[in-house]
């Protein structure tokens, strides 16, 4: 056994809810996917490949949720992403012309133009619009460890009254990972880090060997964890749990002291979509469409006031590298102090939403790249859970506690008077579907109807919609989505019961919600 050394376990959770709207190319919420591809996923692939080519030892843990994978695979959405990139490139040309009189703004416009050309080439020439195989290739190169996640990102502690629903989220998630990425995942990202005691058995049944909790999920475990959040612990089912490091979280997430709050970074909210006259936006958002963000943002955070200074990309990217150096130094400092006291590698587990890097925090991908480069320079190991468990197969056995990484560490974000009708309706629907799953498989239309009902139920379970209802952003959309999926579920189950499945209606629903091509009702069995 080798001598312990400090290590960083960096986890990115890539997830978007299923926002496919086949009947409307300019749908506002479908735009989330195109923004994320341009701002997060393509830059992430690009930086990982560059690091690999440069011989930097990269070991990134990355979860890709089944809903995101389904959208990245979808031919219709891929075609739309391609067209969106072309529109963005055309917008960049117009912006270069529009800003000709202002050197500061035009430098930014030219930065965007060059960047969009590069990303466009990556999309069309390098990846040919297929990002899922690109992530699998990075895994095969040994740069990334891919982990599975819940089928539709259902918040499992609230699905707990329906054991079939929990099992379905885990089982369908693991199966989709295998189908789309070609290998079984060894680990599982619990949606919203939502854990309850006993969930580990469901993970173990799927052969999943590790997962992640928020700090208190492990820190409050029984018995008290000897090594705090700096080492994994085994649950009774043999599944290892890693706990989020509070300091590493705060360094990136905090709006006050986190790196992304630095005034030199690009301001997320100031966008020409809000600043330019509506006529000028028609080529971007379409005629008669409401304003929306375009991705062309010319200002830096500057301060809390409305007056914003012009963003300077080079300065901002240099600051990201400085922050990465500080981040690595802090990890090294903290783990270094623990090395002498622990008989294994002390870890700092740093999980983040992947979409933070590039979308919310534009300089985030540069930060990530610099973290890997700085870690190499500082001889700080960056590991994945599989690396860690192979090196250190012994751990304390504990019973973690119910927890999440949401507000206040529990379920209050998803269980509130504005959204508590959702778990009640989901419970009722799960009760309706359960008897069909226990029966022999039905044939033909009825079978298809039940599978589509199952699909609709899974989509209604997405934690994102309840989250939106609580956070008060696009609440009308979130409410409509849940109600629409529940209504489709009820319509289908009732039509199966009545022996009157309408094939045209079923086809329409299958076209609208077409994810999980290998879904069967067996996945809903207890």
């Amino acid at each position, binding site marked *: 056994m080798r001598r312990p050394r400090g290590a960083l376990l960096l986890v990115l959770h890539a997830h978007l809810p299923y926002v496919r709207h086949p009947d409307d190319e300019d749908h506002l919420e479908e735009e989330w996917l195109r923004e994320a591809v341009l701002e997060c996923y393509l830059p992430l692939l690009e930086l990982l490949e560059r690091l690999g080519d440069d011989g930097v030892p990269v070991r990134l843990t990355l979860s890709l949720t089944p809903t995101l994978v389904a959208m990245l695979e979808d031919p219709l959405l891929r075609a739309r992403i391609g067209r969106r990139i072309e529109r963005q490139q055309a917008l960049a040309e117009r912006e270069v012309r529009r800003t000709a009189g202002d050197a500061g703004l035009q430098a930014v416009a030219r930065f965007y133009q060059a960047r969009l050309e590069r990303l466009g080439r990556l999309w069309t020439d390098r990846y040919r619009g297929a990002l899922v195989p690109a992530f699998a290739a990075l895994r095969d190169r040994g740069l990334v460890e891919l982990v599975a996640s819940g089928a539709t990102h259902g918040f499992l502690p609230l699905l*707990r009254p329906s054991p079939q629903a929990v099992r379905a989220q885990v089982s369908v998630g693991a199966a989709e990972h295998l189908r789309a990425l070609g290998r079984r995942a060894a680990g599982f990202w619990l949606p*919203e880090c939502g854990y309850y005691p006993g969930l580990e058995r469901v993970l173990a049944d799927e*052969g999943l060997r590790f997962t992640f909790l928020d*700090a*208190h999920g492990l*820190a*409050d475990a*029984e*018995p*008290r*964890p*000897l090594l*705090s959040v700096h080492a994994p612990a*085994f649950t*009774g*089912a*043999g599944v290892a749990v890693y706990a989020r490091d*509070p*300091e590493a*979280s705060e360094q990136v*997430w*905090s709006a006050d002291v986190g790196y992304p709050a630095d005034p030199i970074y690009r301001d997320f909210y100031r966008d020409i979509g809000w600043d330019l006259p509506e006529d000028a936006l028609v080529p971007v958002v379409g005629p008669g469409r409401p304003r929306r963000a375009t991705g062309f943002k010319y200002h830096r955070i500057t301060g809390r006031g409305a007056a914003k200074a012009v963003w300077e990309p080079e300065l901002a990217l240099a600051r990201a590298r400085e922050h990465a150096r500080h981040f690595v130094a802090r990890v090294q400092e*903290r783990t270094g*102090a623990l090395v002498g006291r*622990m*008989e294994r590698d002390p870890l700092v587990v740093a999980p983040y*939403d992947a979409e933070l890097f590039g979308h919310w925090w534009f300089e985030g991908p540069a930060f990530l790249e610099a973290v890997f480069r700085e870690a190499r320079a500082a001889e700080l190991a960056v590991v994945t859970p599989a690396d860690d*468990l*192979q090196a250190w*197969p*012994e*751990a*304390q*056995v504990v019973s973690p*506690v*119910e927890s999440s990484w*949401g*507000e206040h*560490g*529990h379920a*209050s*974000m998803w*269980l*509130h*008077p*504005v959204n*508590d*009708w*959702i*778990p009640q*309706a989901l*419970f*009722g*629907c799960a*009760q*309706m579907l359960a008897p069909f799953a226990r029966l022999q498989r039905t044939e033909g239309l009825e079978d298809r109807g039940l599978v589509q009902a199952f699909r609709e139920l899974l989509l209604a379970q997405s934690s994102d919609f309840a*989250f939106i209802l609580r956070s008060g952003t696009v609440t009308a959309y979130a409410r409509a989505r849940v*109600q629409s999926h*529940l209504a489709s579920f*009820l319509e289908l189950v009732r039509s199966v019961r009545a022996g009157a499945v309408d094939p045209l209606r079923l086809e329409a629903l299958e076209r609208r919600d077409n994810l999980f091509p290998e879904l069967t009702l067996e996945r809903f069995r207890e």
Partner: protein
Amino acid sequence: MDDLRKLSVEQLRGLAREHLGKGHSRLRTRAQLLEALKDVVPGPPSRPRAGAASVVPPAASVRVVDFPPGRRGRVRGEPTAAERKPAAAPPAATGRAAPASPVRSKRGALSSRAAAGRAAEVERTLDRRPRPAAGRARTSRRSGAAAEQARPGPAEAPVEEAFFEAPAAPRRPRRVPSPAEPLDAGPFASPREVGTDAPVLLVRDPTTLFVFWDFRRELERGAALGLREPRLLLRIHRGDELERSLELSLGARSTYVTGLAAGEEYTAEVLLLGRDGWTRPVGSRSGVRRLPPGRVSAQLEVRTLRLPWSVPLAQAPSPGMSGEAGHEPLDSPRRVPLPTSPGARGPEGAAGPSGGPRSGRA
């Protein structure tokens, strides 16, 4: 219950005949009779029923009904000094229940305005609860809870005692079913085809449970049989002890129960309460739900498991059978302070990180 225990088997059978009607003859043993009668036979009379009309304050949406031993069934307002327990929690339950006289639509749903008001009220109450500020040490969270408990609760309309006085000779329930009031369907009703047999508990945070139910119609009708002007009682049990009873409007389908003890196990049951004090359970009691402890464990036993990566999980040895358990003192050189421990000190000797923002996405 104590009073029932004083009765002979013959007397219990007589009560069963009176209260339970058909099927009472299947109850053969004293234990069976006691179990069946405990919820349907009210306690002894304490005061005249004259106060009944003033029991339900018009503005009260949820009231706390306490059943101290021997005083079962008495509606409680502010406890008297004699009954006040040393650490009694304030009436902290909030409900999605409607006010006493809500504007109701055809199906009994609250008008949107009333519903909005209700949601706001619930939200306000939930927001008043002590919340662990991100990064506070656990002690501060506990002291926050203690402060909340010490704080006087919101002013309640005075409630007169002795509502549920039992008639000296229990009346036979009428055989004519009392139609249950239509129920609040909420923004999206659960499918009508199914229903629960028991309330369902969800953990919101270490001191709050969300309880919901949607009983099968025959369960509701059966429970309402013969009850006059039935109302809804939700009983929360902590282990085997009755923790709290909440009276909710008949149309209520869910409620938040706040101010519970972190780390404890709870169950819930729903009953219908008739105007004359009779209660009847609807369905069965919920499954047990344990609240998260909200603090670090006092258990210091260390048991380890060695699970090589090459060994499939299915072949993993049981942790109970492998590894050697040992106790580690808190100041063990191997023990690493928890980031959320009270007074935890970071590895570098400075005060430890304070827990960080527990809000990856919030």
